[in-house]
């Protein structure tokens, strides 16, 4: 029987983290609930009819209005379905109030309860001018084929330089879910790690541990154990989510989506590696769980800011902000995956972003390890970062 090699100690610590968390009821319950939410998000929209053409019911109180309403249903260029309901002027107000119709057209006026959708207004305006023009042209004596030609000029053809992705909207939804999942997962596992460090410190068990193993091995073991758990959890949830989305028809799961999903899970590993050491330090610096929140604030703020930036990125995945934040290690894990999911990140940018994040994570770990080692055995009050740094410097100079 002799001392453990560092690797073996890391393995034992990691295994304990993993098995203890997996036996915690609260952890299993929260994972179950999250999975359920993901399945609902993937399954519900198509079941509720979201994503198909928009449907409007238009009331009409006179003949001309009814003609306009019928014409509105045929206006080209809009993905809408219009149902026309003939109402007496007396019924109109009640129909608007109880929501039976979205709007009522009467004598050249469109009335609705709240401000109507732009699309609805657009097709009604177009239909109205079409009908009025037809009347005017007929009055001017135009008939037959000539009238038809005048009323139906060839539509303006829309072309784009870049090919239009018919799946764009669905990919956007997928990218949004990916951002949400990464943000939640990074915050959750950062917090789990930090509070695990505090637990050991507050319960003083860390002193027994460190009489046998090195602080560095304990830290790395904890990071790896929880990291594997976070990775596994995200992997399982992604698989279930994609399966549910595929079965419900919400998303066409093809190679491109699978690749983006795999990269998103991979980005969790990168982001976690970057943030884990920092969260562990935040835990090592405070004596009690109650003080953890404040020492983690700078880190949670970084993640939160990245999260908000990612909304801008979702909107404009090729913008300046999207490009810049993809290469900043603390934001890249949250802002890069949506760009990848939307197909807006060239391969070389992905590689550079991965390299930048990975290198800075690897550079950060020894620094974090030093602060952790200097702080974790000091009990009593909160410790200043500088003191933790120096404590280890003294220890090393003597060793």
């Amino acid at each position, binding site marked *: *029987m*002799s*001392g*453990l090699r560092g690797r073996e100690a890391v393995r034992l610590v990691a295994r304990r983290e993993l098995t203890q968390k997996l036996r915690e009821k609260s952890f299993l319950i929260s994972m179950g609930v999250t999975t359920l939410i993901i399945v609902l998000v993937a399954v519900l929209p198509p079941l509720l009819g979201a994503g198909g053409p928009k449907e409007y019911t238009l009331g009409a109180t006179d003949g001309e209005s009814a003609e306009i309403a019928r014409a509105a249903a045929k206006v080209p260029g809009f993905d809408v379905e219009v149902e026309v309901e003939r109402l007496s002027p007396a019924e109109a107000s009640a129909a608007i109030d109880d929501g039976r119709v979205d709007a009522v057209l009467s004598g050249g006026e469109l009335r609705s309860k709240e401000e109507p959708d732009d699309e609805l207004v657009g097709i009604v305006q177009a239909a109205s001018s079409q009908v009025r023009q037809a009347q005017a042209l007929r009055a001017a004596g135009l008939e037959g084929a000539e009238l038809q030609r005048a009323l139906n000029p060839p539509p303006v053809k829309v072309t784009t330089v870049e090919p239009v992705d018919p799946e764009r909207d669905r990919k956007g939804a997928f990218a949004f879910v990916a951002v949400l999942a990464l943000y939640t997962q990074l915050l959750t596992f950062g917090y789990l790690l930090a509070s695990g460090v505090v637990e050991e410190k507050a319960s003083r068990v860390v002193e027994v541990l460190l009489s046998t193993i090195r602080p560095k091995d304990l830290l790395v073991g904890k990071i790896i154990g929880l990291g594997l758990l976070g990775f596994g959890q995200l992997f399982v949830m992604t698989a279930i989510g994609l399966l549910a989305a595929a079965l419900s028809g919400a998303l066409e799961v093809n190679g491109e989506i699978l690749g983006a999903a795999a990269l998103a899970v991979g980005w969790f590993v990168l982001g976690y590696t970057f943030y884990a050491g920092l969260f562990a330090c935040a835990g090592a610096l405070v004596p009690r769980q109650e003080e953890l929140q404040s020492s983690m604030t700078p880190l949670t703020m970084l993640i939160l800011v990245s999260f908000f930036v990612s909304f801008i990125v979702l909107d404009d995945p090729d913008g300046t902000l999207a490009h810049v934040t993809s290469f900043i290690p603390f934001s890249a894990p949250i802002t890069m995956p949506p760009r990848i999911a939307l197909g807006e990140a060239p391969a070389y940018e992905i590689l550079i972003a991965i390299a930048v994040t990975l290198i800075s994570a690897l550079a950060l770990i020894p620094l974090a390890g030093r602060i952790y080692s200097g702080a974790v055995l000091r009990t009593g009050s909160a410790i200043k970062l500088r003191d933790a740094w120096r404590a280890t410097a003294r220890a090393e100079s003597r060793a």
Partner: protein
Amino acid sequence: MRIILGVLERDAGEVRWRGEPVDLATRARFGYMPEERGLYPKMRVRDQLAYFASLHGLSAAEAGAAADLWLERLGLTERAGDRVETLSLGNQQRVQLGVALVHGPELLVLDEPFSGLDPVGVDVLSGVLGGLAAEGVPVLFSSHQLELVERLCESVAIVKDGRLVASGRVEDLRSQGARAVTVRVAVQAVGDEWLARVPGAEVVDRGPDGVLVALNDGAGPEAVLDAARGAGTVTHFALERPTLSELFRQAVAA
């Protein structure tokens, strides 16, 4: 103790075990119980023991067997599957001891192991420590309960302000005390004014069993006894060696 176990940096000096400087591998063969007890509150008792056994280098199977063995020896078998936080403080203390012992250490270092124990707990712990010492495992512990130390220990060291002020075998220390001879003597219904007639006698302590007299300048116990007889009926007369508590007071006051 914390320096021995490497959780505190030394200012000076060196820690050696069997002639070799102590490193991580050596420390893995030590058992340690810190003054501030530390266990994972949410971990189950058996898991905890097995985990610490494997951290000390035991294989998974060995660690499990060692955990079971110590659960039985410490009377915790029924609580094996309970979370540590649900145990009474006394039982938590036993688990803590188990953590220090589970890997069969070469040396046991215990910081205030008896603090917070009830008399039964003290007996159990004394028995375990005595057994280990008999098996040849050195047990080093700190305590402020000096009667207990006197009863259990072969050697003691008294430390004051980080300096060793006295050390050695308990027997030697007691017989080498500054006052080589003290006698406790009681004379019925009389005070201790008669002692003034004995040259070199000095009252150290007055108690229900009589006065404790230190004999200086070559004065002999016989002279005290003779003077006492002269004063009245002697109800108690005994040679007394200093207790550890007295030695401690002396050493610390010096």
